[in-house]
């Protein structure tokens, strides 16, 4: 694909994150969110406020940190409805850091978002500004997923515990021993007790461990995706596809959405009817917080963990699953996921079967010839 020649990772990105870059980072986080991860608007305002109050944040790579430095992977977990009403205090990051340092007996060297996709991609920026700590240019997903254990650190065998959960009042809980789905179950219960939202840090690790266990360069990737949208003069969708090497599955119009509440999550199916060059085709998309499976005329064209995202045909902005409505003109794209998700344990954790779909995983570039590779930095993770 011609666009791929733009795709050489270049570290020409500023080493600090300034206020004026935040809207682009938020746009990129939304694209990587695959329709989930919560809307980034409120999280963006928090970051704007924090940087305005405390100054720009340093963005660092593994090599900028000592091997034995502690990386605190963190974010919020909870219900989006609560997120837009009970905003954070801004001190949650400080509470997490105190507990993590006490538990590890060593200072935190950098914060990292557990989930770059959606609102959680912005959260460590807010906390880092206040704490005067750098943000590591990496994350634990390369996208968004609904559950705590659906992170690359889990795949790499890094323990979730001790996991720390705090709320805006300064309540702190430490969960020892819990692994896999137990971390998810217990953290979720605490978040509900705290009023539907809580901040958490789990899978705390050293920089040396993080090299093989996280997805590198994703903050930079989010910023570049955002800039490709805001900087595009005529075709923001085309700019996103050129930058990410995504497969363009269908240009169309949302013709039907069906949502149902199942097991604490919203599940649903959307139907998109082809327009323009795709006229006559129909794309069905399965939703469980994120977009998980896309079929064109009954044939699977992409599944999780590859990143299925709906872009507004005009603006190129990603459309959150909760904002999807009849009549929207969209372009459905699929970005190849970070390689680590394609390992056996990666697919066991977040492949189609992990979400209850009786489908084999086939990489999006095999289903759609001409598609590029994961557009992020070539992975330590999974490599």
């Amino acid at each position, binding site marked *: 694909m011609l666009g791929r020649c733009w795709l050489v990772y270049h570290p020409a990105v500023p080493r600090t994150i300034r206020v004026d870059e935040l809207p682009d980072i938020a746009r990129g986080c939304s694209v990587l969110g695959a329709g989930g991860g919560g809307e980034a608007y409120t999280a963006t*305002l928090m970051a704007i406020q924090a940087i305005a109050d405390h100054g720009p944040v340093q963005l660092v790579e593994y090599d900028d940190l000592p091997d034995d430095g502690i990386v605190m992977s963190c974010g919020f977990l*909870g219900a989006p409805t609560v997120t837009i009403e009970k905003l954070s205090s801004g001190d949650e990051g400080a509470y997490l850091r105190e507990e993590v340092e006490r538990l590890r007996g060593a200072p935190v060297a950098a914060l990292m978002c557990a989930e770059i996709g959606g609102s959680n991609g912005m959260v460590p920026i807010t906390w880092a500004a206040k704490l005067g700590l750098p943000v590591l240019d990496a994350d634990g997903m390369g996208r968004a997923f609904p559950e705590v254990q659906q992170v690359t650190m889990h795949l790499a065998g890094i323990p979730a515990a001790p996991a720390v959960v705090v709320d805006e009042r300064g309540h702190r809980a430490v969960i020892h021993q819990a692994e896999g789905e137990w971390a998810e179950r217990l953290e979720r219960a605490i978040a509900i007790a705290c009023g539907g939202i809580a901040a958490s840090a789990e899978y705390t690790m050293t920089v040396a461990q993080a090299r093989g266990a996280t997805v590198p360069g994703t903050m930079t990737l989010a910023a570049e995706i955002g800039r490709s949208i805001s900087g595009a003069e005529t075709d923001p969708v085309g700019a996103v596809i050129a930058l990410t090497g995504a497969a363009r599955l269908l240009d169309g119009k949302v013709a039907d959405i069906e949502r149902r509440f199942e097991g604490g999550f919203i599940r649903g199916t959307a139907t998109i009817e082809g327009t323009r060059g795709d006229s006559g085709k129909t794309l069905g998309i399965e939703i469980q917080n994120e977009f998980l499976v896309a079929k064109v005329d009954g044939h699977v064209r992409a599944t999780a963990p590859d990143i299925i995202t709906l872009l507004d045909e005009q603006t190129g902005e990603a459309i959150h699953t909760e904002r999807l409505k*009849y009549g929207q003109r969209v372009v459905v794209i699929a970005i190849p996921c970070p390689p680590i998700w394609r390992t056996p344990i990666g697919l066991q954790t977040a492949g189609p079967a992990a979400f209850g779909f009786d489908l084999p995983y086939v990489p999006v570039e095999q289903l759609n010839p001409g598609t590029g590779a994961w557009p992020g930095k070539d992975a330590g993770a999974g490599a």
Partner: protein
Amino acid sequence: MSSGSSRSGAHRRLDLRLGLDVGGTNTDAVVLDRTDGLIAKAKAPTSADVSSGIEAAVDAVLAAGDVDRTRISHVMLGTTHATNAVLERRALHRVAIVRIGAPATLSVRPLLTWPEDLKAVVSGGEAIVRGGIELDGREIVPFDGDAVRGFLAPLAGRVDAVAITSVFAPVSPRHELAAADIAREVMGDGVHLSLSHELGSLGILERENSTILNGALLGVARDVAGTLATALGRRGIDAALYFAQNDGTLMALEHAVRFPVLTIGSGPANSLRGAAYLTGRADGIVVDIGGTSTDIGVLVGGFPRESSQAVEIGGVRTNFRMPDIISIAIGGGTIVRPGAIGPDSVAWRISREALAFGGDTPTLTDAALLAGRASSIGSVMPDPAHAELLAGGLALADLAVADAIDRVKTSRSAVSVIAVGGGSILLADSIPGVSEILRPAHHDVANAIGAAIAKVSGSAEEVVTFAARGHAEAVGAIAARAGAVAVAAGADPERVEVVDVEETPLTYLMEPGARIRVKAAGPLIMG
């Protein structure tokens, strides 16, 4: 500025309503009888001060229909006063801003995203005090009344209004009400208060912005109400006064002076409601074509479909419920050029510049004339030399309108379109995906009619978990609250009905729950 109770003359007939709509170009007035029959209509140019335009339109409509003004029992006004005040940063109150939520919400201060000039005019100081409510109605932390007192005391006499917003106030307003008591105690009973739980939905930053804007508009609202009451009084009209609001329903004057922010967006809502009335249809797509633009909206159950997107007013993101409208730059005065139409329009100069009026600018009105869609407009038939240009322009307009209609459609099936507005002659007689096109009489005053025939409404909202009570029971309780709000605003208690139930499932909770919003509305109690 009375509303009903002071009406004199026990035996006089009270069977007429006067509807007024202040638009960008014209102020329209209509008089309707008890059965909603149109008695008279008139238009006057909208004046810079808005009020003299209203007075001119009232005089014109009274003269046009030889109306017995003593029979007018209700006056309904759709006005852009509030919108203009915000856009022009004019006549706004200075507001003390209280948010109840700390330590939550400290990460984003009030007014963070406001334009500096508006902030400078409106803010009399901001405070975030401890307190606020959880999703399930518990306290986040106890309410800190002393902090509210300490913040407001030095501001007494230096601000005109206090805007109070608590976390999850739509779930429970008790901390807001406690803060309001303190505000009255510190600043006197005359202080103007704007409380977020009275302004609706979840999303604290947008609701707070709406609450502050509402506080800033309280003076404007009282001025308009006073001016209107005076103007009507001077003309011997002694009637109950209502203001049109953004959802296509009415609020009594007493309500409007407390919630002026809700009048923003009433224009498109009135147009949709007027179209429903003129055709007797409850569902369909309304295409309102003016001189420079076309507004396309959707009627659902007789009311405008609301936008799910946050709406910005004067650069401030709000949670106003606005009709979901698509506007495109196509109108009767839109200029046609080779291969392109608009976005510019000859606007009010159409009677001088368009070809049909002897001018030399090809417009879409000329195209409609030449295509045979309209007749008896202007003084001359456009020169056939322009035929190819005009036909090309009209084809582009048809495509753009068809595309916009397709964007707002609620389902795949073909829909009915109601065409209103002076420019609706442009509309083709067949549009892809449209089953029929209705062109009602009096479509040129659809907005004023929409104001005159509107129902009175109320809404209520709550976050519920279905473990505590069943789904139907939860919805019923919220509907009862919504109905009570409508009755308080003047609706007939016997005829209030639920017109909309909106349910948002809550994710990531262990027990099933939802945010439910119910709107109820009923016709006015007529004299």
